[in-house]
């Protein structure tokens, strides 16, 4: 009998809802619920790591939306989810769920605009199919701005959620969900007490079980947390991170209350400090604070800035190698933005469109270009006296005499063409439909 034995790798069972990053030290990652955010994090959020989401806009709740995805993903794949909030049950009951398996959102009126918005991809695909493309480009892959949503093999790792579906109530009431109240009657700071509570919860978990636990703080620093000071918040984040690191099956996701996300609250360099105090820190800057940005990027809802990324066992973050959205493997980092459509939240690369910021695909000049052209003509008319009939070729004449000439003369004559209205080379585009809002009229909308 031969003494040789086939070398077989020992079969390691992954914890539920996780995947292994290939590498010398196996790192388990779990999904945040948003495939494109997973891509930015390098495949997913590694266990023992913390994710901090900063959404500084007071009028939107994108930070909470990320937390809802995080909770829904945890519950959908059978992990334990611990939510630290006074209204944890209420918060979880507002989470999204998989299409066709949960209740529909009440009071939801499907509008045609939303529908069009959501079907954007499909319609553009069918539109493209009709266009005749030059043979050399026909075989090229279509330009992708985001990663594809969960495929069949990916489905156990990252479920597909629909924002119009609601989580079933039996899951909200199941033992998978652990809720911890933030406010109590004691004088102790909530942050100190909750650090102890989290440690106790994690200690109760069986270390040999293959069931990860997700800890979620939907709005850290909201009024229920009392009067939080920057130093106290830093202490909380720092201690919580070291607690999570000690438990191999735990991961953490936090959204800060909007008013705490800016340097105006925490002092100079506050966002950088937050980046240092968490394994992954991402900020979502919504365009609602700046109307000119929403006009410039009509198809997105905000910028995504990355402060730090998790690297639990390596010097280089796995995101730098694996993220296709960040695109570091080929060149410099891409600009990223997010958009929230009717059914899902997407992170994607941000590009200026053709001709610098016009969203639609067209063959005729845009209305804005025509307007600019017209306005330039109008200016010229304003400045020139009528009847000036100098040929347009002699627009400027400069004479310079060099050395040897006593008097150096420089004559500059600037003559411009007469105010003859030049017909536009392009056809005027059809004006867009506009809706105006008048508060002083009986009928509010003027079409």
């Amino acid at each position, binding site marked *: 009998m031969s003494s040789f034995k086939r070398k077989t790798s020992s079969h390691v069972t992954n914890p539920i809802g996780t995947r292994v990053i290939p590498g010398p030290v196996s790192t388990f990652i779990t999904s945040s619920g948003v495939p494109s955010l997973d891509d930015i994090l390098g495949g997913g959020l590694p266990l023992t790591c913390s994710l901090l989401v900063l959404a500084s806009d007071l009028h939107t709740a994108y930070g909470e939306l990320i937390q809802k995805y995080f909770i829904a993903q945890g519950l959908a794949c059978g992990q334990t989810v611990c939510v630290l909030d006074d209204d944890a049950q209420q918060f979880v009951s507002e989470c999204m769920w998989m299409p066709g398996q949960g209740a529909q959102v009440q009071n939801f009126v499907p509008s045609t605009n939303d529908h069009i918005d959501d079907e954007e991809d499909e319609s553009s695909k069918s539109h493209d199919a009709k266009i005749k493309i030059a043979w050399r480009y026909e075989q090229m892959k279509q330009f992708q701005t985001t990663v594809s949503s969960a495929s069949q093999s990916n489905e156990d790792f990252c479920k597909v959620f629909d924002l119009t579906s609601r989580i079933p109530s039996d899951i909200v009431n199941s033992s998978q969900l652990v809720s911890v109240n933030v406010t109590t009657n004691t004088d102790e700071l909530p942050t100190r007490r909750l650090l102890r509570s989290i440690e106790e919860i994690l200690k109760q978990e069986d270390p040999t079980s293959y069931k990860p636990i997700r800890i979620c703080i939907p709005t850290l620093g909201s009024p229920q947390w009392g009067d939080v000071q920057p130093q106290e918040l830093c*202490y909380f984040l720092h201690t919580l991170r070291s607690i999570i690191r000690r438990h191999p099956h735990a991961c953490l996701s936090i959204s800060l209350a909007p008013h705490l996300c800016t340097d105006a609250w925490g002092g100079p360099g506050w966002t950088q400090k937050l980046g240092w105090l968490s394994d992954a820190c991402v900020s979502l800057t919504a365009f609602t604070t700046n109307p000119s940005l929403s006009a410039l990027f009509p198809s997105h809802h905000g910028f995504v800035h990355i402060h730090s990324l998790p690297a639990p066992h390596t010097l280089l973050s796995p995101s730098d190698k694996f993220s296709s959205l960040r695109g570091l493997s080929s060149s410099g980092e891409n600009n990223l933005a997010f958009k929230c459509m009717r059914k899902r939240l997407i992170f994607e690369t941000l590009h200026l469109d053709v001709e610098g910021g016009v969203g639609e695909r067209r063959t005729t000049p845009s209305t804005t270009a025509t307007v600019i052209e017209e306005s330039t003509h109008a200016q010229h008319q304003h400045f020139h006296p009528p009847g000036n009939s100098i040929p347009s070729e002699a627009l400027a004449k400069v004479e310079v005499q060099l050395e040897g000439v006593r008097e150096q003369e420089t004559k500059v004559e600037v003559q411009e063409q007469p105010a003859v209205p030049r017909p536009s080379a392009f056809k005027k585009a059809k004006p867009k439909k506009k809706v105006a809002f008048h508060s002083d009229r009986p009928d509010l909308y003027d079409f």
Partner: protein
Amino acid sequence: MSFPSSGLLSRGELLVLTDEVSSPAEFLIHRILSTHLKEANESKCLFLSVSESLTRLRAIAGKSNLNLPQYIQSGSFHFVDVASQIDPPVKIETSFNQQPSLKPIFELTKQKLSGWSGTESSVLVILDDISTLEWIGYSITDLLRFIRVLSAFCRKANASLLIRHHIVTPSEPDDILRLLRQLCAYHLEVLPLSTGRSGSVSGQVALHPGPGITQPVHRPITRKLAVQYRLTDTNVVFFERGTGNTVL
């Protein structure tokens, strides 16, 4: 290109390491630690950790051929979790007069270095993050005193000291950085690229001599001529500006 050169951390001197959030200087700590422990059999290291975990340290060291558990067992490497040794900065139940201090950490360092003083070994003390201690609530006065006393003691014990400080406001140097710059022999500054992150260049390192050394042996590297580096999973590759693999 080998960087930093081995003699940069001479005995009894302080080396200051500064970095920013988009270019963390952990790789230099790992590199210096690995070089120091491999240098001689009797080399010792005391790691005062504020932000780094032993698991990660072990994983990265393991991949660069450094068997950290073996060093821990032999007593050459000692890891201290700073947060577990000191009281939390602001305690609601304590009175305001009773401010927690960093004295236990200094006492621990003193005790450990005194234990190693009999041997001829070269000792390295690493404090991986002084900034977080300030952010979580320890007073600036406490921290400045701690840095001063730690630096003085290491000089007396002929041990090298490495302190890392995070820069969050690059345009305005803070109090801690001012003091560190006054005490140090060299200042290694890790900077991100001004053009943003890149796949082929992770960042750049500048080297400034400090007043702690009268005749600097190593030539300074200005920010304009900073050495660039690229991180891999376990290692780092240094190269001169303009000689990266995508350029050549």
